[in-house]
């Protein structure tokens, strides 16, 4: 009875309502694991990790001079989301993505939301992801954010929150697909006996969303995945998705603008490209339009795009919505464009650019989480309760020097889920990143990437900061 000693403690636990009391949807899983010996479970954990490594599901560590690949630590105990709850989340995510897309189209065109004073113009225009060259852009079908990975968390009482939006090039979906494959061979009986929503149609849905951008008269459209190259931390994923879609995986140096079209260099000469799924940041896409020092993009690509001769997913300019100050305005966007109230709430956010809120933040640094508005990946943040007085002082100065650059949020007591660490189960904090595709309709892949903070007590789940992953089961 492996779970007998597991104590969910004073946290919201994803699998247990209380000690020895699994939640309804988790009961078959808990029973199954209880029927195994520890050695058997550890053996399965090891087999699963080996399988992932062999499949090459790895990420690269930038600082490592060998460019070594590491496996994202993987835990075989899945996280479970009840289907009823999932249906609500799915609706809430669709609402959010729909509104964000309206917002992007609006600010790069008519700017109604700014003119109506719902969101301050200077907050949008000062966002690092706001790209002036994108003004007036009319992307195909009016879709900007084709692929989004929205980070969700739960608090101590189980309330779901949106922690951040990732509209540029969110990564991690390959872990979802590959770890599901591994889990099916780890616990085949559970998949046979439980109603677990499948995730495998992600690649087909992605391909459809991309093909949706091609004018219908094009008979034989060509889709490519644009990667920064072998040394990018998510290279495995780029190559995996290209392979799953049957798309060509290209680097900037494979592409060239010729005769007004985007073309790729092949052994049979230049060939036209119709859709790019880009996995490089907005401002690297085209050195002529954005960063002149970019070696990753294609000179002249923006012009081809503006002429409607190639589609780019996600559209350049979407990064503005990743700014954490813009995030704070999503409830207003939903109200403005949809006339609805936000379903999945934002984490309450203090905007340091407002004097009163700033004073509150600085007075309460020991309780708040402070984030740089233009950073991601767990960088540039202060977890107040875990920080030293010097670190807090340092952030106070940073905030005062650049109020626009910071927001603060209460330190959430993230939900936990049992995780096999050594010879026992530890409750580890988790978040959830579902993947949302905006094609003809909005599609949400059931489940998503559950990231788990493996350092004891840590609240930071990013892979670059010692996080691991789990499979996420949406269970009916």
């Amino acid at each position, binding site marked *: 009875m492996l779970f007998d000693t597991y104590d969910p403690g004073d946290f919201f636990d994803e699998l247990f309502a209380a000690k020895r009391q699994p939640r309804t949807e988790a009961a078959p899983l808990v029973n199954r694991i209880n029927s195994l010996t520890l050695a058997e479970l550890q053996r399965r954990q090891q087999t699963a990790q080996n399988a992932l490594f062999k499949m090459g599901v790895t990420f690269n560590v930038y600082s490592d001079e060998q460019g070594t690949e590491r496996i994202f630590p993987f835990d075989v105990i899945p996280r479970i989301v009840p289907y009823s709850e999932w249906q609500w989340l799915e609706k809430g995510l669709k609402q959010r993505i729909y509104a964000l897309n309206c917002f992007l189209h609006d600010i790069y065109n008519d700017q109604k939301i700014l003119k109506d004073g719902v969101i301050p113009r200077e907050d949008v225009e000062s966002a690092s992801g706001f790209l002036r060259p994108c003004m007036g852009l009319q992307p195909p079908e009016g879709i900007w954010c084709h692929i989004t990975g929205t980070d969700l968390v739960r608090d101590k009482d189980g309330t779901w929150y949106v922690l951040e939006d990732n509209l540029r090039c969110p990564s991690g979906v390959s872990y979802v697909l590959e770890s599901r494959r591994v889990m099916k061979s780890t616990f085949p009986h559970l998949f046979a006996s439980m109603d677990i929503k499948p995730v495998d149609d992600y690649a087909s849905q992605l391909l459809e969303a991309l093909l949706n951008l091609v004018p219908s008269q094009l008979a034989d459209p060509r889709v490519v995945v644009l990667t920064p190259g072998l040394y990018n931390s998510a290279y495995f994923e780029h190559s*995996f998705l290209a392979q799953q879609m049957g798309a060509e995986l290209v*680097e900037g140096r494979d592409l060239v*603008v*010729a*005769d007004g079209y985007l*073309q790729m*260099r092949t*052994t049979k*000469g230049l060939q036209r490209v119709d859709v790019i799924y880009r996995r490089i940041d907005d401002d690297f896409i085209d050195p002529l339009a954005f960063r002149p020092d970019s070696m990753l993009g294609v000179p002249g690509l923006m012009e081809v795009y503006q002429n409607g001769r190639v589609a780019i997913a996600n559209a350049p300019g979407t990064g503005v919505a990743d700014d954490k100050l813009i995030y704070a305005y999503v409830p207003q966007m939903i109200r403005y464009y949809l006339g609805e109230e936000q379903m999945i709430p934002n984490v309450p956010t203090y905007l340091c650019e407002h004097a009163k809120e700033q004073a509150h933040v600085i007075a309460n640094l020991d309780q708040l989480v402070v984030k740089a508005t233009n950073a991601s990946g767990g960088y540039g943040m202060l977890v107040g309760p875990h920080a030293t007085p010097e670190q807090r002082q340092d952030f106070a100065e940073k905030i005062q020097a650049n109020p626009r650059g910071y927001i603060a949020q209460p330190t959430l007591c993230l939900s936990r889920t049992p995780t096999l660490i050594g010879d026992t189960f530890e409750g580890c904090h988790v978040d959830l990143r579902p993947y949302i595709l905006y094609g003809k309709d909005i599609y949400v892949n059931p489940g998503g990437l559950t990231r788990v903070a493996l350092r004891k007590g840590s609240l930071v789940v990013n892979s670059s900061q010692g996080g691991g992953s789990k499979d996420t089961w949406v269970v009916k």
Partner: protein
Amino acid sequence: MLSRVADSIYWINRYVERAENVARFVDVNLNLLLDSPGLQQWEPLVVTTGDQALFKQRYGEATAENVLRFLTFDKDYPNSILSCLQAARENARSVREIISSEMWEQVNAFYLMVKEAAEAGSLSDLHIFFPEVKLSSHLFAGVMDATMAHNEGWHFGLLGRLLERADKTARILDVKYYILLPSVSDVGSPLDDLQWIALLKSASAYEMYRKCQYRITPDGVTEFLILNREFPRSIQFCVLQAEKSLRQITGTPSGTWRMPSDRTIGRLRAELDYVTIDEIVNQGLHEFLDGLQIRLNQVGEAIYKDFFSLQSA
């Protein structure tokens, strides 16, 4: 197919084949020395790589240990076995979604095996290491043949492997030439016989040679390794097959040409079709082999220009 991808598949194969052949020609020398303990000639190995200057600068004297280290485990020498595998693996990694996963796994396992040996750093186990390198290379070729679609990319791979092999067979023959040179009086002696046998064995050619003509004679061996049309490590065989692959890619019928690469390889193949071993010996084996290597390089360059270095129109 993307030029970059074709280029990578071509080079994975070249590097794997190169590693195998370095193992082969070091091995042949080790074997020769076992049968003639007095003879310590390592310099010729460095000479045949064409990288003497680099060797001199990094190691100085051509002792057994220096040469073995240089050719097997030197990570700063781009043609050492270790460097070849590193490069093959990097290329494979960049085209993983094109080649089969079995191919990737084989290159990766091969690389890890060599890396481990390099980290152990021992030169005393090389008699085990070299056969392992050969076997791993054969495994790779077999896996590629059996798991990858025989499409354009596959033909680029084959082209890389065959051109590399032709070049290296020429170099292995040249090693023998260098070793024999100071002792022309030995020609026909039992020692000489042993040396030719060792040479054939290094190209896995001994048994096949015996089936085709009983007696081992210098001209016979040379002819077999250069002009035999059926033995897979002979130069003519490699050129014939490489031409076939190239014509699969370009679609140009044999005997005609459209791209410069068609022409350079077709011309080389035709010359090998009609040259005799007497002509080669009269011209001087070393000179002939030298010229052949230059011609093979020209084929490589033509392929690079025709397919890999496409400039925008």
